[in-house]
């Protein structure tokens, strides 16, 4: 497998969308090619960074209160 093919398949590899044989070919390639390994790892790490930074936030209590009020008003309108 060439560097260019690895470049094209980086996301499918990360997403587990490739068949076992192709996966193994990529794994074999990156053990001998630091550049492709770093590229795949850094694409994967980018996702992890965003997952940590944008971890779920709590709905603020005041926003929850306003939401209930809005929905209650809507229910009244519908009656």
């Amino acid at each position: 497998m060439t560097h260019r093919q690895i470049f094209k398949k980086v996301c499918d590899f990360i997403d587990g969308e490739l068949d076992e044989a192709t996966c193994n070919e990529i794994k074999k390639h990156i053990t001998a090619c630091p550049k492709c390994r770093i590229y795949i790892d850094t694409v994967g790490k980018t996702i992890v960074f965003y997952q940590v930074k944008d971890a779920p936030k709590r709905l603020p209590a005041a926003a929850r209160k306003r939401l209930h009020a809005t929905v209650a008003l809507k229910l009244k309108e519908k009656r």
Partner: protein
Amino acid sequence: MKDETKLLAAVRRGDERAVRKLVDAYSPRLYNVALRILRSPQDAEDALQETFITALDKLDQFDGRASFFTWMYRIAVNVSLMALRKKRSRRKKEESIEVPSFESIRSRELIDWTADPVRKVLTAEMREIMDAAIENLPARYRVVFVLRDLEGLSIEETSKTLGISVANVKIRLMRARLFLREALAKYFHETNGTETES
């Protein structure tokens, strides 16, 4: 599922307690998807309110093919996406994005910035850079990245939620990830070299 059916029947009757229960059960997750797409607590709150209003208005159109939560989740994504497009169109047009070519990547000195623990690396400066990068990601790319990589939907679920093909999800996802990686690569001082092999 049985509980959801009972809850939905009560909501359809206009039972206030059931509606409150529905709001409390679904709002945390719906708020988060809106927040991740819109990146503003105020805009996410507005989108959340609109999601519930739209859902109550269109309750008769829910056909039970997907779960009720999935149905509401799709409404939340659509409402957020429309709000994002409206917001962005006020600032600038939805443009395409530039991602580095294979040749550009191969010509660089790649820095391995994956070894340190995320929390150690995630400095205030880096958070700002990441925020700026995702803010610059046009809506059609951002929403795919949010659903697949932050919300954890599968490629297939992302495709169904957005009503686009699996192939399209994959293309947008790849471009979004490479675009965001590029911002981090600059932060870690990835520099151009001379290698051009293919």
